[in-house]
């Protein structure tokens, strides 16, 4: 990864974070914590990894992305808007009546959304079904899905993992956002999913462990995942919930709460400062 490419991704990630915060603030509801922990991943996928065409969102041979942790839609929407799927102003209509930006992703309303999700555990199964179908159809597209570390408490997730390995879905890449927090607190206190990489390996996945806020590590992992043959791959990312906004970082309380006007201003100032710093690099 060149320095300028990394800088561009970092700047885009700042903008994705700002878009997510703007949307949640305007909606006075939504999920900022997980949107921010996954913002770098959304950025990497939509600006580097995915084979897509924002002008042709339904292109048959595109790569698919399923946001299995659908509640972090504000982050996804911000990335899609920045990538040109729809105007950035739309982000301010999040969760409003008449908006195409539902509280959780809707594939029939929002350009660029490949699957309707929101009920945890189901997205990964649909992604596995897509990957299976692509294999049957002889398509070379890949399917990516992002799960929360709390989400993998759902039993269906492990059904999907068994299925992915059984059908040798090497065109499927499962990403786990391991920010360590869920609504009721720390994942290990609520219902420990640990150790995640070992469990995935036991289910037959080729596992990559990375820092989910480091684009170079992301690049290495995604490149290796693309080369993985015969088994599905999984990227377990260590992340910080609320990453980028000081008072939201590592706070379970910011899982599903909107900032008030004052908090919004602080958040936007912090993110603007980060953007200015990246652009001045």
């Amino acid at each position, binding site marked *: 990864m060149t320095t300028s490419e990394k800088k561009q991704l970092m700047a885009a990630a700042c903008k994705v974070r700002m878009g997510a915060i703007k949307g949640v603030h305007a909606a006075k509801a939504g999920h900022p914590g997980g949107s921010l922990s996954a913002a770098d991943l959304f950025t990497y996928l939509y600006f580097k990894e995915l084979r897509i065409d924002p002008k042709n969102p339904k292109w*048959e041979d595109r790569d*698919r992305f*399923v946001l299995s942790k659908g509640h972090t839609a504000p982050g996804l929407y911000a990335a899609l808007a920045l990538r040109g799927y729809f105007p950035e102003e739309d982000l301010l209509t999040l969760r409003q009546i008449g908006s195409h930006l539902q509280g959780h992703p*809707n*594939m*029939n309303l929002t350009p660029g959304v*490949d*699957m*309707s999700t*929101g*009920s945890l*555990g*189901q*997205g990964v*199964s*649909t*992604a*596995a*079904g*897509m*990957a*299976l*179908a*692509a294999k*049957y*159809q002889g*398509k070379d597209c890949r399917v990516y899905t992002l799960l929360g570390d709390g989400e993998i408490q759902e*039993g*269906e997730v492990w*059904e*999907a993992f*068994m*299925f992915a390995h*059984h*059908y040798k879905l090497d065109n499927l890449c499962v990403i786990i956002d391991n920010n360590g927090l869920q609504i009721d607190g720390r994942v290990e206190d609520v219902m420990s999913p640990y150790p995640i990489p070992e469990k995935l390996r036991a289910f037959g996945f080729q596992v990559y462990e990375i820092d989910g806020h480091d684009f170079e590590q992301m690049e290495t992992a995604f490149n290796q995942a693309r080369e993985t043959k015969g088994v599905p791959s999984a990227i377990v990312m260590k992340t910080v919930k609320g990453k980028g906004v000081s008072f939201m970082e590592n706070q379970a309380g910011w899982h599903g709460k909107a900032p008030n006007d004052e908090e919004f201003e602080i958040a936007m100032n912090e993110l603007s400062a980060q953007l200015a710093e990246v652009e001045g690099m």
Partner: protein
Amino acid sequence: MADVKKIATRESYGNALKELGAEHADLIVFDADLAGATKTGTFKKAFPERHFDCGIAESNMIAAAAGASTMGLVPFASSFAMFTAGRAFEQVRNSIGYPHLNVKIGATHGGISVGEDGASHQCCEDFALMRSIPGMVVMSPADDVEARAMVRAAYEYVGPVYMRFGRAGVPVFHDEASYTFQIGKGEVLREGTDVAIIANGLMVAEALAAAETLAGMGISAQVINMATIKPLDEELVLQAAKTCGKVITCEEHSVIGGLGEAVCGLLSEKCPTPVRRIGVNDEFGHSGPAGALLKQFGLSAEHIVEVAKDFCGK
């Protein structure tokens, strides 16, 4: 009807899948370790490369079928009614129904005629569950001819469909050469003026037998096969209610939430008419031979005759 050929509609389902599979390469089948029982095994034998066993994991199967449909394939996902409509209800609702995806659910072993396996496997709630999902087509065929035509119609229709097939053999009374099936259209099998009997599934043959007996008692019963529970053929139900003034519904399902309530809901709003619902009366089944269970739970021609006699004041 002793000399009439009997075929279980799950057999029809498997045969229809095999036939359609030969015509359409985009038809794929998912099953959950029950291919022998649901009869998708018939398809598997012909097209092993597009029959995907998901193991005993119905929730994942249903959502995976949803994902596959977004790629342009037409997945048929099968298990027992209890485990598709029941266990995987939320996957059907959120991953198939909400995005209105083109997935066909072929649910076998519906109703009490599952028999010896007992209440845990006798799903009498599937019509109610599936009817409650916006945009879901819900159907239950009466015999082999109708079942095979229904599977074909489901393939051709674009959108989510739930079909319930039975375990037990049922008389084949449709004439294949002249029969046509249309989603959302009921079928008048016998004209009558005193009472309209609206039935589906294995209760259609019972209703026909009951109407014959009733005729001997001076009661003229119309018999309607309502294979599509949703969308309901409202025009036909209203017409029957106006003609007969009395309606009996018959289904191998709870009286809560199925065909009976669909008919009552329509009539109460558009043409208030006395209705008697024959079905399973808010109770669980139990083990036993299918035929004996059906009699015990009042899902028989004899019981329809009793209800009709009482209803008509005879």
